[in-house]
């Protein structure tokens, strides 16, 4: 048994034993669970993939004379101005003004909110255009200027939902190509797409939210941020394997960090043909090895994690709840799965390559004593399920 304080002391003195979630299983197999739990201080987990429910708050500072922005665009991408005078929220999935979307399907969606966020973190010069109705104290009615992230007072990423614990595998049972947030799906189960780092993914290594909770310090695209709430649609009361590993979406995290400290290679705009724009983010979460049970959970392997295969041409949009079958991440990572006798080629939207890079970067930071762990100030719920939106004809 170890405490957060003991682990942080070892990190601060540069003596912490840190392994990635990719390395820990073989290590435990060699050393045994009991010995390894004593020896290992931290296991690093990570993921890199599109996380639509992301965005950032920006404060521009005041122009002379002042403006109270009532509508604003960055690089022609609409931002939310329903807050204070020069505060805005820029969302990852907002389209650029004039984007034809799916007018001539499938749309290309080359640039949008996620790309603005990528360019901002990359230090590029961006155009701001804002309008106002004018007030006595904020008389300016229009502004057009150029800025970089260094000009801003604050640029703080605030993401309502990141790091889905597990995720669907999408196939297409119809007779035409479909365009989804899980990529282009060929007809008659021509291909399948998944989106999870599997055995490296943060919440799959802490299935019951024993160490990852509100207040947990995380590595968000290179910046040190934290979990500020349960993510939206967090549903800990889900179907699980006998080992407790969720076999559906389940838990999520709401994350925040300072964008001025982020690294552009881990903040990437996403164009999903026929669907829209999004933002891919790199997230690393350290798991303190406080006891044997926490370590045992962090030893989860791709073969023990099952993902539901769902038909995105019908069952997903119609919300039937039907699952064709479950497949393991070990099977998915071979690049081919077999369903009802048919071989299906498998692609991914989540980058295991980048996730591995992040798990190693975070492990190095911890070993150098540059990243200390924080205990959650509140646990994530395990007993909540996801509600549906009821269509009512009358007020409740």
């Amino acid at each position, binding site marked *: 048994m170890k405490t957060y304080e003991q682990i942080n002391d070892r990190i601060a003195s540069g003596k912490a034993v840190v392994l990635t979630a990719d390395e820990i299983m073989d290590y435990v197999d060699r050393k045994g669970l009991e010995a390894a739990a004593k020896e290992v201080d931290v296991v690093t987990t990570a993921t890199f993939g599109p996380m639509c429910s992301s965005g950032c708050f920006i404060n521009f500072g005041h122009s002379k004379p002042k403006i109270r922005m009532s509508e604003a665009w960055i690089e022609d991408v609409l931002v939310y101005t329903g807050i204070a005078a020069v505060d805005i929220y820029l969302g990852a999935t907002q389209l650029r003004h004039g984007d034809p979307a799916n007018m001539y399907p499938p749309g290309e969606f*080359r640039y949008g909110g996620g790309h603005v966020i990528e360019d901002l973190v990359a230090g590029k010069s961006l155009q701001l255009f804002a309008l106002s109705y004018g007030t006595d104290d904020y008389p300016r009615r229009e502004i057009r200027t150029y800025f970089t992230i260094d000009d801003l007072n604050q640029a703080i990423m605030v993401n309502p939902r990141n790091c889905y614990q597990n995720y669907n595998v999408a196939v297409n049972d119809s007779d035409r190509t479909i365009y989804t947030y899980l*990529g*282009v799906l060929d007809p008659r189960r021509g291909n399948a797409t998944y989106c999870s780092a599997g055995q490296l993914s943060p919440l799959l290594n802490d299935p019951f939210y024993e160490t990852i909770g509100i207040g947990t310090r995380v590595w968000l695209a290179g910046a040190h941020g934290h979990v500020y709430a349960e993510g939206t649609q967090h549903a800990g009361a889900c179907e699980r394997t006998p080992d407790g590993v969720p076999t559906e979406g389940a838990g999520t995290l709401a994350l925040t960090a300072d964008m001025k400290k982020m690294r552009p290679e881990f903040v990437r705009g996403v164009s999903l043909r026929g669907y829209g724009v999004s933002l*891919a983010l790199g997230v690393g979460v350290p798991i303190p090895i406080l006891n044997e049970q926490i370590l045992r959970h962090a030893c989860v392997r791709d073969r023990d994690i099952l993902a539901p295969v769902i038909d995105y041409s019908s069952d997903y949009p119609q919300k039937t709840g039907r699952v064709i079958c479950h497949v393991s991440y070990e099977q998915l990572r071979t*690049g081919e799965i077999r369903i009802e006798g048919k071989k299906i080629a498998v*692609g991914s939207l989540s*980058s*295991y390559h980048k996730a591995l890079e992040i798990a190693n970067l975070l492990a190095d930071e911890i070993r150098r004593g540059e990243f200390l762990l924080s205990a959650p100030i509140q646990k994530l719920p395990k007993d909540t399920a996801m509600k549906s939106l009821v269509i009512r004809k009358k007020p409740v």
Partner: protein
Amino acid sequence: MSQTLTKKLVLFFPRYDCEKPIIYHLVKDHNLIVNVYRAKVTPEEEGYLVLDVRGTEPDIEKAMEFIKSCDVTVNNNGKGVTWDEHRCTHCGQCVTHCPTDALHIVDAGTRRVEFDEAECIECLNCIRVCPFNACASAF
């Protein structure tokens, strides 16, 4: 007997007048086996032709002289489709859509994606499906 080679060519036509049937001459006069990947040659407009030619070295050399005499720009690098290693996140979305495995996962452990240009037939599927705009077409 000289050895047979395969060479990928990208021809660029600056406002070509379409009068010379280039491919016909490559086959008939220079004994080349031609495999066209994609082409757009329209009168009074700029155009391109991406192809493989197979034949002996002297035949290919003579054919190249002929092509150049037609007021056509030849790009021997054969890059009609490019893959930007730095934009690629190695997600692997492209690999199931690439018919020749030009885009493929090189290492099962790290799941790194690589592009083997020699295998690319310029179907442009990768450009259609890459979420990170890592693949691009020269035309």
